[in-house]
């Protein structure tokens, strides 16, 4: 497993807020944020893969059955490939995504966020036989519920994570307003909150918007009724002309 990145080793102390994100620092000092996926999406992805495999095997067996002995031979080879190599080939050659994971929006990566390789993929898929024990992935379920990063046993052995793929987000339209300059300095988080306020207008009720904006009325030096328009203006100012 490549060791190009260091996991922030200490698990979050009990007082730190619980979060599903894992922060990983690369040697270049860049923080990568991984979002490991837990049991439910993974179970769904697995079910989809299982169905696809069943379908492939079923259809191919029907077709090959008509070919007689030769078909049965081909079927045996196909069975081997689908059972042992379906996941591995898709994961390594398709950026860590089997079809089921692709549909749900997951992918497999190493613990440090690098793309999964042959060794890790083979390990995690061969060790399904440990996860399946004693019946129907019982050990895998328990391990997935209990480990940080929602890993089943195969993931622990191979050093892999199943994470959500980052989808490119579309910029939501801002509420129309005249760009304004913020009357006080803000850090990144605060600027983001103001922007989000302007971006999520559609999802909030009018009363709630006024209530939220009123919190900032005093620092902005305006009356609570004008605060909303002022915040929207500042958000436009923060966004710039882009």
């Amino acid at each position, binding site marked *: 497993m490549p060791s190009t990145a260091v996991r922030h080793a200490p698990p979050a102390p009990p007082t730190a*807020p619980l979060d599903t994100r894992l922060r990983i620092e690369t040697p270049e000092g860049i923080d990568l944020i991984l979002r490991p*996926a837990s049991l439910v999406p993974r179970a*769904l992805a697995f079910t989809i893969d299982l169905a696809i495999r069943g379908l492939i095997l079923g259809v191919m067996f029907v077709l090959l059955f008509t070919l007689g002995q030769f078909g049965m031979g*081909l079927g045996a080879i196909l069975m081997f490939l689908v059972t042992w190599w379906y996941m591995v080939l898709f994961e390594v050659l398709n950026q860590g995504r089997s079809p089921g994971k692709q549909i749900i929006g997951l992918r497999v990566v190493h613990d440090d966020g690098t793309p999964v390789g042959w060794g890790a993929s083979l390990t995690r898929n061969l060790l399904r036989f440990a996860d399946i024990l004693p*019946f129907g992935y019982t050990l895998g379920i328990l391990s997935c519920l209990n480990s940080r990063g929602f890993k089943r046993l195969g993931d622990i052995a191979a050093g892999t994570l199943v994470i959500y793929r980052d989808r490119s987000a579309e910029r939501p339209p801002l509420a129309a307003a005249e760009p304004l300059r913020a009357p006080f300095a803000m850090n990144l988080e605060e600027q983001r909150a103001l922007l989000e306020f302007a971006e999520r207008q559609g999802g909030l009720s009018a009363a709630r918007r006024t209530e939220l904006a009123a919190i900032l009325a005093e620092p902005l030096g305006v009356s609570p009724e004008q605060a909303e328009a002022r915040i929207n203006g500042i958000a436009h100012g923060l966004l710039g002309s882009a």
Partner: protein
Amino acid sequence: MRLTDASVAIRPRSAWEALDLGVLLARRHAGLLMASWALISLPVLALLTALLWEYPSWAMFVFWLLKPAFERLPLYILSRALFGDTPTLGQALRAFPRLLKPQLIASLTWRRLSPTRSFDLPVLQLEGLSGAARNQRLVVLGQRDTGAASWLTIVGVHLEMALWLGLVTALYMVLPQQMSIDLDWQKLISPDAGNWLWLDHLSNLLYALALIVWEPVYVACGFSLYLNRRTALEAWDIELVFRRIRQRLGGVAYALLVGLGLLLVQPMERSWAQDTPAAICPLPEADPLGPDADRLQQQTLTSKASRAAIGQLLDAPPFENRQTVTRWRFGDDPQKDVDRGDVESLGQLLRGLFHLAEFWKSIDGIALFFEVLLWAALFGLIGLLLWRYREWLTLFATGREKRQRVARERPAVLFGLQVTPESLPDDIAGSVERLWDEQPREALGLLYRALLSRLLGEFRLPLKSAHTEGEVLQLVEELYQDDLSAYASRLTRHWQNLAYGHRPPPLSSRDELCQGWRQLFGHGVPR
């Protein structure tokens, strides 16, 4: 409820991620949740088992039906724990009867089969609404994320089954084999004997045990979905940050106000703009070039010089690591659409394979042909492997005797002397004594040949025709036989003196050498 006390990171998540947060939440309080669940559910199961001993399936059904009632306790614990007020086990159990009252009948009847049960429960239990308001609230909250809630329930059903069957299998696997065989036979012979009820109740118990693991997670996932929905609807994350801004600026604004007042009172001097604290943004008119403008011009280190120095530092290692990589590549590197290309080529491959298969089917014995081909490939592979590692095999896999026979090829002639045993007389010492007087050269030659022959034959020295006499002596020394090496060096010295220096050995050495020979090799015939 104070958002600033929340023990989870509040931000809008996707529905799946909200479920993940629920798993984390359940894990953090796993001990309390599982213990409380076990303490309320297992006694109920025991009671049901006692009441419905004859009908284990009915006991199971009633227990299953009562699940929503039990689920209120984990939710109570989680809702308190979310804001840092985790109850103790005793407190939670004491609170349980009070939690049961509202909407119990609805939960156990028409809401029992709702797939979004875990998502709706927080509304029923925590918000305390009633009637139309509650229904409206459910509709509003259910506009999104109900899909994830349904999937949670569906997956949950299967997980319960998997855990339950896993427990059953594990129990079956640890049974002694004889016992399980006996059980099977008894069940087969007398299925109606009536002694099997305890087995059914045991399986009920295992189901209850599986629920201890899964139900807290299920409730926590529903709860976190509910939290996520409210975070999105009410912008909790924005509220948190806004409050923080107000808290931070509350003091600053006051100070600014005072400062401005003071400034207005004082006459305007030229330097006040430069002394303004950096917390205030400079006005755009005062700073036309923005942050890139030259500053600090009155001192030795101007902003321009310092920026240049910083740039220089950042341009050198370790901040900068430039590499020039030169490699060959093909001129046309088309940007191909991976997904579609793969699918299409796969489809073509499948079609081709299908046509090929149809064609093959028409030919008789094609299966046999391929069978032969595959077997031939297998044998070919084995043969290739054997050939590839033949030296390794001869080194490690054959016996010692055979190896020596193979390795040794005995030379027949050394230094122009015949050294085969056949070319030597039987009684070496006697022949030497007879020859010594008339033909000393032949006598000594015979003795030396005989020595070489014995070294080759008996001591298996790897002598080659390229060795010199000195090298032969060295090889003899490596045998660590003092008598032999002393004799060999003596004989070699005499032989070299005679052969190359034409100096006959002294007469006394005849007996000495022959005697030595007899002592070393006796009279026997070397074969």
